[in-house]
């Protein structure tokens, strides 16, 4: 009997321990970011700040005038850039891929099967193959060193189309046919019948697109030359190369980069995980 009563405790404790281990690096990141400068590289390695200090955030985020010249790590502008780019990429991505996914699932048109096959097949072509020539193409189009140059490649959402298509297949054809018989136009059917049913999927996809754009590193690193346009990961990597010694400053930078998406995820986790779980598990 005792064993039977202990089991939930044991299994929960085990899961809790693993969770603690997983979360520990993120907690440590926050803790170190509040340590006074240099404290994290003293022995024995401190687990807690001797006093909570905001100097790293001040230094990282505030523009200072020294001797008539402005100094700044440009984190705040990068934050704004990242937000703008991720928001635009998400909005455009949804606008482009959700109707396409629906079309591939429910609308009959010539070449659909063939196109679908090509899309699935192209999933295994690594995006990096295209990267080198894409740079040359973008140069000709004048897109190097611009927001558009960063956003455009992320709009080719093959995965997103297939994701939406998969979810749309579950919608019964009869609903759509009934609307057609009532004389509704195709666009209206999509907007007023299909979209509401797809809401959880769209939220999941939106978060996916947002995270993808927010965390994207390699392409923005290549295509953005001008520091005005840097996204957060590019700006952080640039600081990190020169200021690796500044553990506390870099941790503050990591907090600034991860917190917005973590909070967004926590706010939307119910939709997001449900979307991923395919509705098979409740809350």
């Amino acid at each position, binding site marked *: 009997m005792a064993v039977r009563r202990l089991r*939930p405790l044991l*299994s929960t404790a085990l*899961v809790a321990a*693993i*969770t603690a281990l*997983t979360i520990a*690096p993120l907690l440590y*990141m926050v803790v*170190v970011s509040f340590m006074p400068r240099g404290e*994290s*590289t*003293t*022995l*024995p390695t401190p687990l807690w700040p001797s006093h909570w200090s905001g100097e790293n955030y001040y230094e990282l985020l505030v523009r200072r005038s020294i001797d008539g010249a402005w100094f700044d790590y440009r984190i705040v502008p990068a934050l704004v850039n990242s937000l703008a780019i991720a928001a635009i990429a998400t909005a455009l991505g949804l606008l482009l891929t959700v*109707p*396409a996914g629906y*079309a*591939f699932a429910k*609308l*009959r*048109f010539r070449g659909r099967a063939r*196109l679908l096959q090509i899309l699935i097949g*192209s999933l*295994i*072509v*690594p*995006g*990096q*193959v*295209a990267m*080198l*020539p*894409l740079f*040359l*193409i973008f140069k000709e189009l004048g897109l190097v060193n611009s927001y558009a140059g960063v956003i455009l490649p992320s*709009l*080719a959402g093959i995965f997103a189309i297939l994701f939406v298509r998969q979810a749309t297949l579950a919608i019964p054809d009869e609903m759509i046919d009934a609307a057609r018989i009532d004389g509704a136009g*195709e666009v209206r059917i999509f907007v007023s019948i299909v979209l509401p049913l797809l809401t959880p999927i769209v939220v999941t996809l939106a978060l996916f697109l947002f*995270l993808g754009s*927010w965390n994207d*590193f*390699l392409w923005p690193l290549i295509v953005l030359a001008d520091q005005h346009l840097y996204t*957060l*990961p590019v700006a*952080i*990597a640039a600081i*990190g190369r020169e200021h690796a010694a500044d*553990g506390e400053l*870099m941790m503050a930078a990591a907090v600034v*980069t*991860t917190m917005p*998406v*973590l909070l*967004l*995820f926590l706010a939307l*986790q119910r939709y997001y995980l449900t979307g*991923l*779980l395919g509705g*098979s*598990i409740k809350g």
Partner: protein
Amino acid sequence: MTRQERAAWLFTAPVLAIIALVFVLPTSLALALSVTDYSIYALADWSNLRFVGLGNFTELLSTPLFWRALGNTMLFAGIGVPMAIGTSLFTALLLDDVTVRWKPLWRVLLFAPYVTSVVATAVVWRILFNERFGLINRALGAIGIAPVDWLGDPHLSIPAILIFVTWKIFGYNMIVFTAALSAVPGELIEAARLDGAGRWGRFRHVTLPAIGPTLLLATVMSVAGFLQIFAEPYVMTQGGPAQSTTTVLYFMFDEGFKWWNLGQASAVAFILFLMILAVTLVQTRIGRRYEWL
């Protein structure tokens, strides 16, 4: 053209056009570049560009660093896939246990690393891995293990990066597996238990076949992902020490965007593509044999 067909093209044409511009066209151009000697000299003056046939490919095959990068990539995939998939499956199975409480809370927290940025968390882990001041060595020291030079020893740099990568990504497949596990019929497991099957036997003969297709798909995606590993070594070790974390994609990035040998780099990109294609085909075939697909 029917009304439906017009709507279908209205819905699909824009995204298809973008896919053609940013994916299909450059991929074909890459094929063309890979048979030229596009280098910094061609960047200076197009007249220096020459057709070299398969020269880039034969050149690559006799470049020691390329083989080393290939070997490193294989190590990343060979150790990383079992590590990541194993962790995902293990935690999913733990979470699937009926006796565990507050499941949604654990799920959200275990998933959290997945949504963070590689660049930012790599910074965190570089500090955790530090030989003298890192928290990991401090923890190991507490149980009597001497400090480990995680990122400075050529033999440990790949395992160290893999620990980071596993931490970062296992949450995703954990959720995928959780979904698959919840679809395993409880009666089947109960029946097996009544037949006297042990814990392992129930997993092997009931659970595993039921989640087989999901497991296979996750593995295929993971292999493809690990073969394309780049940002982690770029941020954590810059490919070192002694080029022990230079991967195929890192090599391509260096050749292409660091030295502007686009001919050579495109050849690397194609070899990478062929590798992924081959692995995918093999895995699909294995899947067919066990009737998972």
